[in-house]
């Protein structure tokens, strides 16, 4: 059975592609490079991708919004929506702390390894939390 929240019409897919094209172009052009990693940033990315496609663009699950739990990867269940705000804050604080710790150390031999591990761990943590109603890959990758 298709999940209606994660099922898109042809027009919606086209809008998602166009929204991502504009956003990723800005990111590749360095316009987002100085931004701090925080919940606001992730929600802004989500909003940019899902504007015109879903009414909840930019809103994460919380006690005031969204499904209690969402299914992902078939049989997996997300944490309850009440846990999302704190969980998100914790994940993104870790990212920002790590970025600040490594600022100015770009010449260190393990700098790239640390960045790759940070990106993978953050993506995995976000998948585990499922902060949005409609999946996390699209906003997690630009982050």
């Amino acid at each position, binding site marked *: 059975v298709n999940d209606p929240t*994660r099922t*898109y019409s042809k027009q919606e*897919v*086209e809008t*998602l*592609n166009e929204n*991502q*094209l504009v956003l*990723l*172009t800005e*990111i*590749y*052009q*360095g316009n987002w*490079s100085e931004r701090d990693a925080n919940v606001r940033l992730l929600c802004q990315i989500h909003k940019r991708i899902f504007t015109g496609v879903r009414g909840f663009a930019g809103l994460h699950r919380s006690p005031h919004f969204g499904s209690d739990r969402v299914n992902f990867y078939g049989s997996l269940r997300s944490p309850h929506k009440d846990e999302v705000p704190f969980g998100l804050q914790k994940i993104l604080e870790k990212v920002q702390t790590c970025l600040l710790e490594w600022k100015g150390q*770009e010449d260190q*031999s393990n*700098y*790239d*390894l640390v960045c*790759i591990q940070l990106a993978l761990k953050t993506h995995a943590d976000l998948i585990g939390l499922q902060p949005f109603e409609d*999946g996390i*890959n*699209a906003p997690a*990758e630009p982050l």
Partner: protein
Amino acid sequence: MALVHDITNDLIDKSMTPEVLADLYAQGILEIQDIAKALSIEVFEVPFLLEKLGATRPLHVILMSSDEIAAKLAKIQSDRLARNGTPVYSKEAVVRDIVSSQRLEGLDAREWARKELKL
């Protein structure tokens, strides 16, 4: 694995079928970029082809030795330093990211990508 990529030009025969290329990918002999070149298709088309042909890499092919990891990280670092740590815009890379991201959500953005890149 990094070294394998450098010698593949000698290995690829233009008459190789997609099935043969997919098998070489599964063995870790060819990379996605090599297959795109051999078949004269875009890189973003290759994962769909491999999936269709059922080509998957077993864990022992995916795992890298410590020397291979070091070589790969050195290449990543040298690329980053060459562009001074700033991202470099390329429409191809942006479109490839979108196709890849949509694929993870079960969406196929290839038709849109072909139009966008005027292929």
